[in-house]
């Protein structure tokens, strides 16, 4: 039955006051939800970043380990090279000193640098020259010196001088030993010339 000229307005629970309340609560809930989602996202990103940073830290620490290892190795190499360089310098000086010891009248035909000693082969005009001019300085350097002579064709004397240093000096002489073979070869070439 409908007797009215007009239709009644639609009745709703959403009165203006209710609409205002709904909007207020809606916005509040939306903001809370938004904040919650934002925090959730930030937490997720933080966790992700943290795991990335942990991985990066691990990789970096591994790299640091490698670098430290290589630093140690380089330092060792450096120490070794310095040692070698020092030894070579000492050797060079020793060789230079050795040649300085040999007087002009004596001719060396061969020199052997041993671990703890020096063996010289050469020709001397006579024993006296050898004894005074070569053996005397050798004795001041080495602890033990042995000499042997045999005559050469031209009347001069071939000599073999074997000189040893006692164990205290062995450490100093060690690096020199490594170069002994090469030096012998060089001496032989020079003598031949």
């Amino acid at each position, binding site marked *: *039955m409908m*007797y*009215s*000229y*007009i239709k009644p307005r639609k*009745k709703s629970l959403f*009165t203006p006051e209710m609409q205002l309340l709904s909007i207020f609560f809606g916005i509040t809930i939306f903001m809370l939800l938004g904040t919650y989602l934002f925090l959730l996202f930030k937490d997720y990103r933080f966790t992700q970043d943290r795991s990335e940073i942990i991985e990066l830290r691990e990789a970096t620490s591994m790299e640091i380990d490698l670098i430290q290892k290589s630093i140690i190795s380089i330092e060792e190499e450096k120490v070794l090279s310095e040692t070698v360089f020092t030894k070579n310098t000492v050797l060079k000086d020793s060789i230079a000193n050795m040649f300085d010891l040999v007087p002009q009248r004596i001719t060396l035909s061969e020199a052997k640098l041993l671990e703890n000693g020096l063996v010289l082969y050469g020709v001397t005009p006579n024993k006296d020259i050898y004894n005074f001019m070569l053996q005397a300085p050798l004795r001041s350097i080495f602890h033990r010196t042995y000499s042997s002579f045999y005559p050469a064709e031209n009347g001069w004397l071939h000599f073999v001088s074997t000189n040893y240093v006692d164990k205290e000096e062995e450490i100093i002489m060690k690096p020199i030993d490594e170069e002994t073979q090469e030096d012998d070869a060089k001496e032989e070439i020079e003598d031949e010339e």
Partner: protein
Amino acid sequence: MFTKLYERLYVKVLVSIITGYKKTTVYIEILNKSGILNSYEEEFDTKYVSIEMYEYIMSYTKETPYFYISILDSSPSQGAIGTCSKHKVGYFEDLSASEYKCYKDRWTYYTAKTDVYAIEKVYEKIGVDFIFSPFVLLANFFKDKIDTHLAMFILIQEGSLALSVFNKSELLYANYLDMEIEIASDELLIDDNDIAQIEKEMQESIDLDDIASLDDLDEIDDNFGDIADLDSIDELDDFDEAKDIEEELAENEDMQDYSTRNTESINEDYKRFSLIQSAVNIFYKDEKFESEFIENVYIGDGVGVSGDLKKYLEEEMFLNVYVRHVDLASELCAITKMDLA
């Protein structure tokens, strides 16, 4: 489904507004699922929505979203036509600019669309849910009589009358009579001298109560040549039988209560009588309407008319008049409930 649930949770507030000349009656009924909780009525000295009236209505309607505001249409351009056929309606009235509805597929009631818009505009602040025609209210109020009687039914409001003639629920004639318009025309204003003259005329006219015997009839016959229509005792008996005894008894009880409230001036009642008389003349004379002889008049009195109106109608128009007091606001509320159901 949820709407039904919410409706059960909240109370319903029905606001009925009846507008008069200068005052507006607001009737509020608060309902819950078990029935009426409370009802309140207040009168405001305004024809429109005053601040007091707005606050009064809002104080009840703000409690629930389910409130309905009903207004009884009091616009002058309304009426009713005794047919629902769209083809026949045009014969009686041009309804192109009117809002109209059919009542139980029997008759049509209408009002001007502009008046509906005007009502909606006036009550814009509080809103309007229902606008009812006074003819609907009349039909519902007298439905026990309309269905079984041939009679004129009149609803008296402050400043207007809704007049209709029904023959066993078939509407023969209807007219909405606005007293304000008549006042503006200034034709019906009468002074004390006029009232005295009218009373004198009435004393000289036929009083059916005095016709108790054949002797009286003869006496009347001597004075009035045109009384030949009532030329036999049998017809007189028929005329008496047409009286609604039950309604008369009810009316007597009602009138006893009502006599104290009878504050309307004779001037207003005479205006009403004149309007009814002219409407009845139109009904009888206009060929558009199927004329039937009206013997009984049922008046739904919404304002508290004096006994003078009844006297005028009985003595001047030889009608059996039955006056029933009607509380327009609560009747409007009842129609609202019917519409909501």
